[in-house]
């Protein structure tokens, strides 16, 4: 017990103030992973037991959409919607069909976002969670369609939307129609917003390109995970274009907070609490008699 507590002592500034980790056993000979944050080798069970964060420095590892969903919503409350929609190679773009197959097989998802209804701390809401392991969460026509539909459904049922973004941007293999999804989703977000309904976005690593320049930045409340890369243009492209060295921490959550583009940085350990409270504050939002 003492040993475990020692391991779990928070070292990250953001983690101060009562973050609790579940007790995990460290079996001898267990696989470890080097944390990109503190460069220490951490047993996998300790990472898994800490919501995919490093128990030593609080580094947030990337996680898949189902794991994230389970960690966020009330047990057994999620009902998935639009799960049959599947990407098609309608432009016969070189290599796209094969890419869809390999990426789909490896992450066992049909597209880069899952949508549905759920409860968070007893608050009913619509949720969408993007999937980093499906073509880096890129937005093609199906992702755009699913996001649009979940906002339309939420508008109709007068529900708030909680969305987790992770995306490399628009999916170039679907050409101009991918780009148009930015406008389509923005329209659906606007209609939802005009009904007086709440939309909370949680930006996770990485959220870039066309997703940043559309529904990720259109929420009433924008939270981000610590250390996530969030931006419009890729850092490498900016470096090549401007031939200047990028400032430290460029495009990280902390950088966006400093420049006034996000409301809060919220570590995973506190997300459920925070979301629950915020949803509670807005429980009468969009009531018809208002």
């Amino acid at each position: 017990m003492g040993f475990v507590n020692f391991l779990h002592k928070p070292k990250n500034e953001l983690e101060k103030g009562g973050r609790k980790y579940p007790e995990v056993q460290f079996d001898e000979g267990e696989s470890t992973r080097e944390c990109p944050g503190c460069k220490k080798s951490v047993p996998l069970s300790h990472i898994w037991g800490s919501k995919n964060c490093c128990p030593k420095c609080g580094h947030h590892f990337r996680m898949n959409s189902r794991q994230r969903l389970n960690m966020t919503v009330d047990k057994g409350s999620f009902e998935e919607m639009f799960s049959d929609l599947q990407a098609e190679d309608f432009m016969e773009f070189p290599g796209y069909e094969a890419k869809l197959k390999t990426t789909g097989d490896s992450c066992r998802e049909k597209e880069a976002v899952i949508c549905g209804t759920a409860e968070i701390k007893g608050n009913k809401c619509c949720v969408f969670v993007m999937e980093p392991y499906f073509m880096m969460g890129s937005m093609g026509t199906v992702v755009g369609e699913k996001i649009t539909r979940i906002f339309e459904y939420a508008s109709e049922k007068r529900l708030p939307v909680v969305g987790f973004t992770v995306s490399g941007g628009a999916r170039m293999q679907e050409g101009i129609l991918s780009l148009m999804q930015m406008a389509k989703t923005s329209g659906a977000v606007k209609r939802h917003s005009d009904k007086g309904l709440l939309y909370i976005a949680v930006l996770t690593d990485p959220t870039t390109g066309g997703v940043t320049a559309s529904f990720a930045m259109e929420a009433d409340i924008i939270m981000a995970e610590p250390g996530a890369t969030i931006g419009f243009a890729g850092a490498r492209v900016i470096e090549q274009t401007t031939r200047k060295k990028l400032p430290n921490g460029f495009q990280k959550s902390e950088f966006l907070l400093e420049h006034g583009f996000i409301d809060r940085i919220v570590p995973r350990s506190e997300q459920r609490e925070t979301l629950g409270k915020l949803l509670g504050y807005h429980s009468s939002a969009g009531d018809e008699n208002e």
Partner: protein
Amino acid sequence: MSKSAYEKVKTARSNSRPTGKNYVDSIFTDFIEMHGDRSFGDDPAIVGGIASLKGMPVTVIACEKGRDAKERIFRNFGAPNPEGYRKALRLMKQAEKFKRPVICFVDTSGAFCGVGAEERGQGQAIAANLMEMMTLKTPVISIVIGEGGSGGALALAVADRVWMLENSVYSVISPEGCASILWKDAGAAKNAAESLKLTADDALGFNVAERVIEEKNIGKKEFYRDLREDLYQEIERLSLLSEEELLDNRYNRFRRLGERQGE
């Protein structure tokens, strides 16, 4: 013989093509330019103001790449910063208030990629335009006159009608960018241009654009005269719609793109 996709990309980027300001000066009369986003600064890559279209007051917004080397640098080669998009949105809101139609001329390789642009929220600025333009209570027509570069172009093209010049292009990414990401070879841009389906005819086929404008007389008096007539008539048609019909049509125009059936 019709041009290949990459030839069209090159034509769209050509320095000899009329730029945004040429259209503004030739189609309208009494243009009065308005500057600044009321928050950070004025972006020379976007020119906006009020003008007369055959006696009808309209708000005009144009990307401007610049005509000579000196002006191109001043205009940042037509790549807008966030304050450019915010200026555009400010002028659109003003148009909505005074019930003026909005006409945008799009010609940009894309929103500027720079440290300052990121610090001032390039993504947020574009997102705000997409969201607000969708419910702008006045007719909006956007014409892609050269390059329609990704989100930076779309932020001026959430419109009731999108027209494209015959040799203009509209794409999610530049062919060079696409080639370097997918095939690690910027030289494969020619193939990427084909695969991306970025020509005006492609856009028409996908219902991303309503009309392709012939370039036979580009830059000549009759070219601008025809465009002036067409814009005037289209605005008259759009003005017949109720506010609700106008906004529903605009929403559905984008809603249908990439729409799927089934659960």
